[in-house]
């Protein structure tokens, strides 16, 4: 037997436990040992997402729609997969800018616009009212039903209630008192409510356990497992139609997809989700665990939804019991009063968790973004001169909490009865989805402007009002129903549920399509058509590039003006109290290595920004800006200046990268240039040497020609014999001159690569024989003995025949020049080995010293003392010969020791010539 008093008592004991947990957590937080600094607590607190809607409503939805309740949880799972990208960014932005609420976030992003913050607040409050009314409805219904135990009577049939019995009103008032005690005990600069988070985490455990208990009881207690339950359902003709295949998805994949998208938005932008996920987050790393723990929670709380739904349909086949209450009525029907009480507590925990966090989040928004900006602008109130404003702030928030809950109650009375739980909640989901373009656009697109956000939100919200809220009121009888059936003024195209004739979708999908088209369209068009102000430009950059900023000082770059530190201090003290202001200034001075309050702080841009951020934590960014502006003289930056600062910052990184690369390239180029310069200098020196040597070599024969011609010219008496001798010398010297010039030209041609090479297969044996034959006369004159050792047959080589003859002539004439004058002897040998032929020319002259072995091959090298010895040749012959041999892939060298003759050798490859 469950007595009314017992139920009420249990409920209050439960609320008392919650309060004790919150109190304990707050105490611990004040002592510096936070209990919520754990990823598990964070994940559990996120489960505030599961409200009375999940606890009671899912079963109701499943009983009519099969799996149609699941997108509400699968959508968030998909969104959470993106948390690493999206939530981490929002978190970082919020921490750097001391964001206190969703409205604050949007207002702050678009140039700290108070107007935008106000609009967001209005949308959030109106949009969430149906959701709050849903919780009130669920709690009051479950209470009303439980009180009738052991009878099972639906609330609608209980009959008219007096004020005393109006549970929903009482629930609203009790929850308001409870929330005030919870969330507005004191003012925190960072809007952290550690006690609340701990209590919410506990509530999440309670509702999960209660729901699993019912699920297990229905599936394994009443029935014999899943197979038995679904088997029995399939045996009923009416239920079999629902089971095979499951309805819900069959009802329309478009609806399924829209519900998924809708809940993806909801998990991010419901004010309470933003509160627990962003504002109450104490450590960015907690996301890591929450990313899979929170979806796991949602999975667990949904496993038994369908079994309970079918269990209920089997147990109450006549439809007398509302499917939204199966969770409670099934244990009651089975006379399990303790389980029924546990369910009531579970539902209570689901509802209170939602109401507490939602109203705290909304009251912060109402206070910071709606009421304070207006109050601060009203000069008559002289708020600027009030010494302590903390009391006022708390008062506003408390008032807002009561007001929001009473409005929620009002909505419940006006429109709550006509809809099932899930349908009421979805209306709220659609409202908060309107924030998605402004927020997601705001953190990824710098081009989004205040004008765009204002028009997007207004347009989306207007469509929401028209397609969702209006029909809800009309169906409840507060507006003529003809509005829905015939359209306003009988205009069919404007029917709220088939706007512009779009039909075939459920109400939510229909509203989502039109509101998103209006919202995104207006946001993009508004952003593209209005150019942003300096403030917007700065904030856009701070938000979008948050991962490129370092520390909170990022915003300080954008401030210029004059201020005084005591003014700033008293400003902070007025809003946060002297204790908080003192500790804030101490922290700031400490970071600067100064000692507050003895040291004189310089009221520079950094301090002003610091104070503004601290203040923003208490009264929101827009209000903080107004307040700070009232005590400092700020010189407004122009849009160009802001752009310059931003460009500077973002380009510096790019520039430094470019600079590094350029400097590396430059170094490489310098090294190359140095190398080239070295080569050029060397070449230049060689050229100079060459020119001076050539001139020297040309002068020698010229001198003797000139000397002898002058003798002949001056002295006609020279006898014939003498004259003949002189003329002979002149001819010889002229020949030498010609030869020299020819060789220089030849060399120039070879070295510049312009020489004509006529290649053919040549038998070196023939070349040697021919050369020897041509020089035969010379050998005889000099009385030189020639020894030719030529093999029977050698392989041919690919060379230029004339050039090879030139080489042989050169080597042999050198040998003739230097061989022993008395017993001249020259040996010419030809051999073949290792894919090449080798030619040796050996003489018995005075030989070449080791250090001259390489020098003889250089240009104009004359062996011996050039000053005393008469030059024997041009000094180019060996050089040219070596060039020729090397051109054909061969090698030329000399082996010799001083006094024992020299052997010049060269090789040529027998393969294909070069």
């Amino acid at each position, binding site marked *: 037997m469950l007595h009314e008093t017992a139920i009420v008592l249990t409920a209050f004991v439960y609320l008392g436990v919650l309060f004790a947990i919150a109190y304990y957590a707050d105490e611990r937080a004040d002592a510096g040992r936070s209990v919520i600094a754990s990823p598990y607590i964070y994940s559990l607190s996120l489960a505030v997402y599961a409200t009375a809607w999940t606890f009671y409503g899912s079963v109701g939805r499943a009983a009519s729609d*099969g*799996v149609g309740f*699941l*997108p509400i949880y*699968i959508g968030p*799972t*998909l*969104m*959470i*997969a*993106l*948390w*690493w*990208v999206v939530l981490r960014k929002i978190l970082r932005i919020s921490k750097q800018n001391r964001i206190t609420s969703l409205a604050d976030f949007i207002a702050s992003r678009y140039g700290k616009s108070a107007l935008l913050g106000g609009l967001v607040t209005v949308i959030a409050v109106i949009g969430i009212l149906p959701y709050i009314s849903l919780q009130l409805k669920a709690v009051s219904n479950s209470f009303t039903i439980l009180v009738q135990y052991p009878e099972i009577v639906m609330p609608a049939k209980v009959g008219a209630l007096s004020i005393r019995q109006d549970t929903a009103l009482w629930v609203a008032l009790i929850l308001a008192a409870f929330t005030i005690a919870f969330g507005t005990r004191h003012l925190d600069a960072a809007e952290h409510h550690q006690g609340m988070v701990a209590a919410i985490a506990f509530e999440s455990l309670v509702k999960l356990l209660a729901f699993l208990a019912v699920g297990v009881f229905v599936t394994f207690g009443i029935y014999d*497992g*899943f*197979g*038995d339950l*679904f*088997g029995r359902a399939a045996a009923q003709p009416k239920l079999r139609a629902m*089971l*095979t*295949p*499951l309805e819900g*998805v*069959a009802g329309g*994949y478009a609806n*399924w*997809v829209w519900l*998924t998208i809708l809940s993806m938005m909801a998990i991010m932008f419901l004010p309470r989700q933003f509160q627990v996920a962003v504002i109450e987050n104490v450590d960015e790393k907690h*996301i*890591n*665990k929450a*990313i*899979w723990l929170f*979806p*796991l929670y949602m*999975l667990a709380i949904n*496993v038994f939804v*369908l079994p309970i739904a079918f269990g209920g349909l089997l147990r109450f086949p006549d439809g007398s019991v509302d499917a939204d209450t199966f969770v409670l009525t099934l244990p009651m029907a089975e006379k399990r009063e303790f389980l029924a009480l546990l369910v009531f507590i579970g539902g209570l925990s689901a509802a209170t968790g939602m109401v507490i966090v939602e109203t705290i989040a909304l009251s912060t928004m109402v206070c910071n973004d709606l009421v304070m900006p207006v109050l601060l602008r009203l000069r008559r109130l002289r708020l600027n001169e009030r010494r302590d404003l903390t009391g006022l702030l708390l008062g506003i928030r408390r008032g807002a909490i009561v007001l929001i809950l009473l409005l929620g109650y009002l909505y419940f009375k006006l429109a709550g009865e006509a809809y099932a739980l899930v349908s009421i909640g979805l209306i709220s989901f659609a409202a908060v989805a309107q924030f998605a373009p402004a927020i997601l656009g705001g953190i990824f697109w710098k081009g989004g402007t205040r004008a765009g956000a204002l028009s997007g939100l207004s347009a989306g919200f207007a469509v929401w009002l028209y397609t969702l809220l209006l029909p809800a009121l009309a169906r409840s009888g507060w507006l003529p129903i003809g509005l829905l059936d015939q359209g306003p003024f009988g205009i069919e195209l404007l029917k709220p549920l088939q706007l512009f004739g779009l039909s075939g979708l459920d109400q939510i999908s229909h509203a989502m399509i039109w509101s998103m088209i209006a919202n995104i369209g207006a946001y993009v068009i508004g952003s593209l058509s209005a150019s942003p102000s300096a403030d917007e430009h700065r904030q856009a950059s701070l938000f979008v590039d948050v991962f490129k900023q370092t520390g909170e000082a990022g915003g300080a770059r954008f401030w210029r003006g004059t201020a005084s530190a005591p003014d700033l201090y008293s400003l902070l003290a007025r809003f946060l109290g002297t204790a908080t202001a003192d500790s804030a200034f101490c922290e700031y001075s400490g970071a600067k290595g100064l000692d507050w309050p003895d040291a004189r702080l310089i009221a520079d841009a950094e301090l002003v920004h610091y104070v503004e951020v601290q203040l923003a934590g208490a009264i929101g960014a827009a209000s903080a800006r107004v307040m700070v502006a009232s005590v400092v003289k700020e010189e407004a930056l122009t849009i160009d200046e802001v752009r310059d600062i931003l460009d500077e910052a973002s380009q510096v990184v790019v520039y430094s990268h470019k600079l590094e690369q350029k400097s590396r390239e430059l170094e490489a180029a310098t090294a190359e240039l140095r190398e080239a310069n070295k080569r050029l200098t060397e070449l230049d020196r060689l050229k100079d040497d060459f020119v001076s040597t050539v001139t020297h070599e040309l002068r020698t024969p010229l001198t003797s020609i000139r000397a002898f011609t002058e003798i002949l010219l001056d002295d006609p008496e020279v006898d014939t014999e003498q004259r003949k001798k002189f003329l002979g010398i002149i001819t010889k010297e002229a020949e030498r001159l010609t030869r020299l010039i020819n060789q220089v030209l030849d060399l120039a041609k070879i070295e510049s690569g312009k020489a004509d090479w006529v290649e053919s297969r040549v038998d070196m044996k023939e070349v040697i024989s021919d050369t020897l034959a041509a020089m035969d006369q010379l050998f005889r004159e000099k009385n030189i003995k020639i020894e030719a050792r030529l093999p029977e047959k050698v392989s041919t080589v690919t060379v230029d025949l004339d050039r090879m003859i030139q080489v042989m002539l050169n080597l042999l004439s050198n040998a003739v020049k230097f061989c022993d004058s008395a017993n001249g002897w020259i040996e010419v040998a030809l051999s073949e080995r290792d894919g090449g032929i080798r030619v040796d020319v050996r003489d018995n002259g005075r030989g070449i010293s080791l250090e001259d072995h390489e020098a003889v091959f250089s240009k104009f090298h004359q062996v011996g003392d050039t000053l005393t010895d008469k030059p024997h040749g041009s000094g180019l012959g060996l050089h040219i010969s070596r060039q020729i041999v090397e051109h054909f892939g061969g090698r030329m060298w000399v082996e010799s020791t001083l006094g024992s003759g020299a052997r010049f050798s060269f090789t040529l490859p027998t393969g294909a010539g070069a």
Partner: protein
Amino acid sequence: MSEFESKGQRFVALCMLGMVLFNYPILALFNVSGTLFGVPVLYAYIFIAWAALIALMALVAESRS
């Protein structure tokens, strides 16, 4: 590529996988009559796929590199 970026890309890929798994036409393939372990096929499919997706998310979230 930094650790943060590669992790982010894996999560985006998982989100896309989820969008495919829980959407037409894959859902339609499983929306047939019949049961799996006594549970309607679609219901069983959604929960198994959902659990698998969460497992993958846990794997990526907890991975070090």
